């Protein structure tokens, strides 16, 4: 939320009743009263999520035409198609809050909306498809499993449905990595290199440390988020370290160590300069990703106009028929 945006004055009694409902674990539905800031926070989060699904199609789509077997080609195509479905589904969920898809897409294309920074990294080898499924979808699952309990009903329900597919993506990605890791020396190198490049960015997907996260308190109080960034990140690390070991790949962190007292894997410092650099638009592919989305949108303009013109003509024909 930008500070220039006006902060609406809410009726404190309604806010208290609303917060009581959230605290009681009730689901908030589109027709229910909600504080304006709650609505805005949800629009922000849900649209960022939808945009991430859509932009996320690009790095993986980059390998559909080069997938090394017919089975892999089909499963990658199906995965990227699933992500399009997720985007569509969440855009529809966001529409229940009174913003339409067109408006949101406009914000993505003009650079005012954010999407997950992870998709500003390039996919350089086939192993990146494995690494993305395993790590990026894996991190998304940790986050979305929490969001499936979010207070806003349409978002929570979308997450339940989407999580099922993300689990499938993750299994598929991990399987790709396992096969590469156990394959020829060149394949093994490819797998390790992909893990080396995707490990830290995937940890950054959970956002800044709790102490630095500006939106967190309010989101927790309103039941939009149920766990902090650091809690979720730790959960992901604990799950993933064991998985890497199981297939003989090395997590690229010399300081990685198991802490017996907390039963957590402790990691070395995250490079937050890199995180903010990519968030602010200077990641390796920020420009390419937006340019690709803009190009698809611009090249598809005539198609959308044609469909609209055709639908309008059809509607006129029907109403003329009914008037007769």
């Amino acid at each position, binding site marked *: 939320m930008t500070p220039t945006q006006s902060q609406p004055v809410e009726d404190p009694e309604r806010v208290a009743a609303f917060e009581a409902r959230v605290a009681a674990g009730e689901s908030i539905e589109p027709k229910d009263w909600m504080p304006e800031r709650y609505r805005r926070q949800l629009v922000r989060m849900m649209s960022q999520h939808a945009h991430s699904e859509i932009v996320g199609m*690009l790095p993986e789509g980059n390998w559909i*035409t*080069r997938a090394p077997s017919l089975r892999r080609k*089909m499963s990658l195509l199906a995965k990227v198609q699933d992500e399009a479905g997720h985007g569509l589904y969440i*855009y529809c969920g966001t529409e229940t809050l009174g913003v339409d898809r067109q408006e949101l897409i406009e914000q993505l294309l003009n650079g005012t909306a954010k999407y997950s920074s992870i998709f500003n990294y390039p996919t350089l080898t086939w192993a990146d498809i494995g690494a993305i499924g395993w790590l990026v979808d894996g991190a998304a699952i940790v986050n979305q499993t929490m969001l499936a309990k979010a207070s806003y009903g349409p978002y929570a329900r979308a997450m339940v449905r989407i999580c099922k597919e993300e689990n499938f993506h993750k299994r598929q990605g991990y399987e790709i990595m396992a096969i590469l890791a156990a394959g020829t020396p060149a394949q093994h190198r490819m797998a390790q290199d992909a893990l080396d490049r995707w490990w830290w960015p995937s940890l950054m997907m959970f956002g800044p440390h709790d102490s630095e996260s500006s939106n967190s308190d309010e989101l927790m109080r309103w039941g939009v988020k149920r766990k902090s960034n650091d809690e979720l990140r730790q959960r992901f690390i604990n799950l993933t370290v064991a998985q890497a070991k199981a297939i003989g790949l090395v997590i690229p962190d010399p300081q990685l160590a198991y802490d017996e007292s907390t039963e957590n894997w402790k990691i070395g410092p995250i490079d937050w300069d890199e995180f903010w650099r990519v968030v602010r638009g200077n990641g390796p592919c920020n420009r390419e990703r937006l340019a690709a989305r803009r190009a698809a949108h611009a090249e*598809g303009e*005539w*198609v959308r*106009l*044609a469909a609209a013109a055709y639908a309008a003509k059809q509607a006129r024909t029907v109403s003329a028929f009914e008037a007769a």
Partner: protein
Amino acid sequence: MSVRTSGQIEKGSRQFEYLVRLGDDRLVLGHRLSEWCGHAPILEEDIALANIALDLIGQATLLLGHAGKLEGEGRDADTLAYLRDAIEFRNVLLVELPKGDFAVTIVRQLFFGVFGLLQSEALQRSNDRDLAGIAAKAAKEVRYHVRHSADWVLKLGGGTDESRERTQRAVDDLWRYTGELFLADDVDRAAAAAGVGVDPSTLETTWHSHVEDVLARAGLTIPETLYMQRGGREGRHTEHLGHMLAEMQIVARSHPGASW
């Protein structure tokens, strides 16, 4: 396996050739369609085109797998897809042309879709039980593909001036590649005579009435192209196929013998 007579080898290799043609058409078209994923005009079309691509590549996998088994030399669907050169591909030229704009893609889908539907419907009665089964499944899928492309041809033909012009141009450009769909040679005739395949020339009249009906309803006309391009069935392709295969095969070929 007993020693085969030359007649049997001849028969087997013809049926292999016939199946490879069916498989290659679908593999190459499916690959071209998959290039849209992430770049379609609307999100719904990213999904729809990916669906159709998945169906086609799925059909190709079954057809090439069946061809490889029949050949009996240890080539599976992946070997056939990834380790053959362009001159060994047997698809029609229509399916290998670059995806073009959305109008080109949609018009090609209509042209090949109607052909694929008629072909699959006929092949459901093949006395090659495997092929009949693949065709029965394919016919169900392709019925949807045809509806999808015909709907879009109507929308684009009846939409705006620009969409009508682009779609007419696509029809004009692609029409010269439709004749090849119906060319029958010894391979087709032998497959038809054996009750395995269908002679593609027998599908031409129905194809024309179907396609011309859709085009007419969309206000589009058929160009007066007299010359029809050909060559794909003999491995004489356009320049585009080599580039497409270079991309498609690069990873598989860079790691000989590797599993994925």
